[in-house]
C-alpha cells in the first residue's frame, strides 16, 4: 500500500512537470530541455523565501509565478528566435539548462540541502499510515490538474490553444495572436513545473542536478502518454510514477530506470503517438 | 502488349473527400501520357499513390505486372519509377552538380555507394549540359530561381535513369521559350532512351508537342481518355474545362 501511495505521489508530481513539456511540444514543436530547471527553480524559490523569512508556504505560493515569468522571458528572448528549428531549439535550451543549473550553484552553492516540511503528521489510509504532507501533495496535484484541464477544455484561452495546435496558419487567419498563445503556454508550463518543484522541496535532497532527473522522467511520461493530450500525460505520469515506485521497492533505482526506458521504447515503436495520444492526420 | 505501369481501381480518401475515386490507368512502354484536369482534380494525389507517397485505400498498382503499392518509397524508385514534384524538390544546401550526382547514383545498391561510379558521374555531367545547367553547376541550389529549380529537378530525375518518369507540372514558372526547350528535350530523351513518361500539365502547346494520349481527371475520376484530337472534341471535357481554353 505504501508503494501505491509512493507511486501516486510521484505520479502527481510528474504529471505537473510533464504537462508543460507535452503541451509546449504539441503547440510549438519545441522541446524545452531546460524544463527540469523550471522544476528546480521552483525549489530554489522556496529555499530563497525560507532563508529570507523562515516561511516555506510563501515560497510555494510564489514559485509558480516566479518560474512562470522566467518561462515567459525564455520564450520571448530565445525560443521565438529559433522557430521552426526543432533540434537547434533543443540544443539552445540544453545550453540554457546548463546556465541555470550552474547559475544556481554559484548563487546557492553546489551542496545539497534539506528543507523542513511545512507540516508533519500521518494519516491512516486503508490501514496504512502515510505522511500527511504527501497526501496533501497528491490532492494538490489533482486539483491543479483538474483546473488545467478545465482551462484547456472549457475556456476561450484553451480553445485558442487547441486552434493554434491544430493549424497555426488557420488560427492566425482567424485573428488569434499565436505568438501570445505560445508565450502564455510556455509560461504556464514553466509555472506548473515550478509549482511541482516547490512542493517537492521538502521531499527531496535538493541540489542543482536534480532537475535533470525530473526532466528524464518527464520525457518517459510524454513518450508513454503521447504529446498534445492532457489526459494522456496524466495517464503516462500515473504509469511511470507507479512503475517507478513498484520497481524501486524491489530493485536498484538504475534497474527501474532501465526497465522504464525499455518500456518507453517498446511503446513508441508500437504506437508512435503514445499509449493515449490521438492519431492525427 | 502489356502495360508497363498499371493502376486498378485506385481510391484515396481524405476524411470525407475522395481525392482519387476509382482511377484505372494503363501506360504502355515508351508511351508519353499527359494527365490533365482542373485544380483539385486529384492529379497530384494520383502521382502520390503511384510513387508510394500515399497508400491507396482501395485498388492496386503494378509495375511490370508486379505489385508496388506495398513497397517503401525508395524501393519503388529503385524499380525505375521516378517522380518530379509539383513544387520543385531538391537539396537546398548543396550545389547544382551535387544534386544531380546524388540523383545519378540513387538506384545503386547501398554497398556500391561508397565510391562514385565513373558512369554515374559522366551521366550527371551529360545531364547537366543537356538541361543547360552547366553554367550554374557550382551554385547552391537554394539560391536558384523557380524556373532554374524546375530545370534542376528535371535534370535530377533524368539522371536517375528512370524507366517510367512522372512529371508533375514540369513547366510551371518557366518562360515560353524555356517551356518549348524542355518539351523538345523531353521528347528527344524519351525517344532516345525509350523512356515512358506520365506528365501532368496545363500548357496546351506542351501537351500537343508531347502527349500520345491524354487522360482527363475530374473530381478524382477518369473523365475521358484518348488521343488529343478526340479529347479536344469531347463535349464533356469541354464543359469541365469551360473558360480554361481547351
Amino acid at each position, binding site marked *: 500500500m505504501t508503494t501505491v501511495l509512493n507511486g501516486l505521489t510521484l505520479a502527481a508530481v510528474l504529471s505537473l512537470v510533464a504537462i508543460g513539456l507535452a503541451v509546449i511540444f504539441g503547440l510549438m514543436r519545441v522541446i524545452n530541455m531546460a524544463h527540469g530547471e523550471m522544476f528546480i527553480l521552483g525549489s530554489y524559490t522556496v529555499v530563497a523565501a525560507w532563508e529570507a523569512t523562515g516561511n516555506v508556504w510563501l515560497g510555494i505560493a510564489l514559485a509558480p509565478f516566479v518560474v512562470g515569468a522566467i518561462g515567459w522571458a525564455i520564450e520571448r528572448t*530565445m525560443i521565438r528566435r529559433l522557430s521552426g528549428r526543432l533540434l537547434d531549439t533543443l540544443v539552445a535550451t540544453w545550453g540554457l539548462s546548463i546556465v541555470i543549473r*550552474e547559475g544556481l550553484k554559484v548563487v546557492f552553492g553546489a551542496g545539497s540541502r534539506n528543507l523542513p516540511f511545512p507540516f508533519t503528521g500521518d494519516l491512516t489510509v486503508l490501514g496504512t499510515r502515510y505522511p500527511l504532507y504527501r497526501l496533501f501533495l497528491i490532492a494538490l496535484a489533482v486539483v491543479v490538474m483538474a483546473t488545467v484541464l478545465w482551462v484547456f477544455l472549457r475556456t476561450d484561452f484553451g480553445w485558442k490553444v487547441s486552434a493554434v495546435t491544430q493549424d497555426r496558419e488557420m488560427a492566425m487567419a482567424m485573428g488569434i495572436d499565436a505568438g501570445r498563445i505560445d508565450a502564455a503556454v510556455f509560461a504556464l508550463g514553466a509555472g506548473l513545473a515550478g509549482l511541482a518543484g516547490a512542493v517537492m522541496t521538502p521531499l527531496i535532497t535538493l541540489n542543482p542536478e536534480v532537475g535533470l532527473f525530473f526532466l528524464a522522467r518527464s520525457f518517459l511520461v510524454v513518450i508513454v502518454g503521447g504529446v498534445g493530450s492532457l489526459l494522456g500525460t496524466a495517464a503516462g505520469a500515473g504509469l511511470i510514477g507507479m512503475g517507478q515506485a513498484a520497481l524501486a521497492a524491489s530493485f536498484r533505482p538504475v534497474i527501474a530506470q532501465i526497465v522504464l526506458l525499455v518500456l518507453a521504447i517498446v511503446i513508441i515503436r508500437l504506437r508512435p503517438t503514445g499509449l493515449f495520444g490521438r492519431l492525427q492526420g | 502488349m502489356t502495360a508497363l505501369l498499371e493502376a486498378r481501381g485506385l481510391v484515396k480518401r481524405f476524411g470525407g473527400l475522395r481525392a482519387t475515386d476509382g482511377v484505372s490507368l494503363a501506360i504502355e512502354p515508351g508511351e508519353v501520357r499527359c494527365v490533365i484536369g482542373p485544380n483539385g482534380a486529384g492529379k497530384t494525389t494520383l502521382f502520390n499513390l503511384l510513387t508510394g507517397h500515399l497508400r491507396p485505400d482501395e485498388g492496386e498498382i503494378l509495375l511490370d505486372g508486379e505489385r508496388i503499392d506495398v513497397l517503401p518509397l525508395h524501393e519503388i524508385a529503385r524499380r525505375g519509377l521516378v517522380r518530379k514534384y509539383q513544387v520543385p524538390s531538391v537539396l537546398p544546401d548543396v550545389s547544382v552538380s551535387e544534386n544531380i550526382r546524388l540523383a545519378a547514383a540513387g538506384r545503386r545498391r547501398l554497398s556500391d555507394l561508397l565510391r562514385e561510379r565513373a558512369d554515374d558521374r559522366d551521366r550527371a555531367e551529360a545531364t547537366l549540359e543537356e538541361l543547360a545547367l552547366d553554367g550554374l553547376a557550382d551554385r547552391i541550389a537554394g539560391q536558384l530561381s523557380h524556373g532554374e529549380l524546375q530545370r534542376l529537378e528535371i535534370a535530377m530525375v533524368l539522371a536517375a535513369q528512370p524507366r517510367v518518369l512522372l512529371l508533375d507540372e514540369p513547366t510551371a514558372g518557366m518562360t515560353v521559350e524555356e517551356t518549348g526547350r524542355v518539351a523538345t528535350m523531353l521528347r528527344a530523351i524519351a525517344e532516345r532512351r525509350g523512356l515512358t513518361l506520365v506528365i501532368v500539365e496545363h500548357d496546351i502547346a506542351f501537351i500537343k508537342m508531347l502527349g500520345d494520349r491524354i487522360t482527363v481527371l475530374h473530381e478524382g475520376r477518369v473523365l475521358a481518355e484518348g488521343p488529343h484530337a478526340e479529347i479536344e472534341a469531347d463535349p464533356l471535357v469541354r464543359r469541365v474545362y469551360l473558360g480554361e481554353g481547351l
Partner: protein
Amino acid sequence: MTEAVGARTLIGRSAARRIELVHWVVAAAVAVALWVVPLFASRFVTGQVARILVFGIAALGLDLIWGYTGQLSLGHAAFFGLGAYATGLVLVHLGNVPAAGLLAIVAGVAVPTTLAYLMARTLIHGNVTGAYFAIITLLVSLILEQLATTLIGITGGINGLYGMAPIRIGPWELWGLLPSYYTIVVCALVAYAIARRLVRSPIGRAMEGVRTNEQRTASLGYPTSSVRTIAFVVGAAITGLAGMLYVPLEQFVYPTQLGVLLSTSIIVWVAIGGRRSLVGPFIGAFVVSYGQSLLSDRLQQYWVLATGVFLVVVVLTQPRGLVGLVSTAVRRVRGHREER
C-alpha cells in the same frame, strides 16, 4: 552519352583533383607537425595536444551524425564512455588472458558500435528519429552513467577503474604518454580519412539529403533509414575509438566519461568548431580546451556555466560555428576581388 562531356567539365575535374591533392598535402603537413610535437614540447603540452585530439575525434563522430544527417545525439558521451569502459574492463578483469591487449582495443570500438547498431535498428528503422531519438540517446547516457556508478564490484563505482594492466600487443606497449600520443595522432588521421571518404561518397550526399530533404532522397532510391543508420553507427564507432584511446593516455576510467557533462562538451566542440565540416570538431575541441586552460583557477568554477552560454550564443547567432564564420569571410573577400 560520354561524348557530351565537354572540355569545361573535364577541366573542372582536374581542378577538383588539384584541390584534393592540396588538401592531402596540407593534411600530411599537419600530421608531420603533430608527429614532431613531443620532440619540442613539454610532457604537459604533449598531453594537452593528445587530449585535444581525442576530444576532436569524439566530436568528429558526433559531427557525422548531427552535422551531416541532422540527427542530434544528446547523449553522445555514452559511446565515448562505453569505449573507455570496455577497454578498461578488459584490462582490469581479463588482464592476464593472452591477447588481452588486442581484445581491449577491439572491445573499445566494438562495444559502442554494437550499442549504436542496436539503437539504430530498434529506433531509426521504426521511424523514431529527430527529437525523440535525441532524447533517448540522452536517457541511455544517463542510465549508463548510473550503471557505472552503482555496479561498484565491476566498475569501481564513482572511483572508476585504475591500476589497469597496460595494453600490450606482442612487444608493443600502448600505455603512457608517448605511445598513446603517437597512436592518437595516427587514429585522428585515420578517423578523419574515413569520415571524409564517407562524406564525399554518394552515401555522404544522401546524408545531406536525409537532413535537408528526406522525401526527395528516398524517392530517388536511397534507403534513408539505412543511410541514417550508417552515419549513426560510424559516428558512434569513431567516438568509441576516442574513448578507447583515452584509456592508455589517462590510465583511468570514470563514470563522468559516460555522462551528461561530456555529452554536452562534445556538442559544444562541434557547435563551436562548425557542423558539417570535418576539421570543425578538431578546431572546436582546440579552441574550447585552450580557452579553458587560459582561465585562472578562481574562474575555473564558472567554466561549465560559460559552456552553456557558448552553446546558446552559437546556436542563436552562428549555427555553422567558426568554420562557417571563416568560410563566409573568405567568400566575401573573394567576391570583392571578383568585382574589381
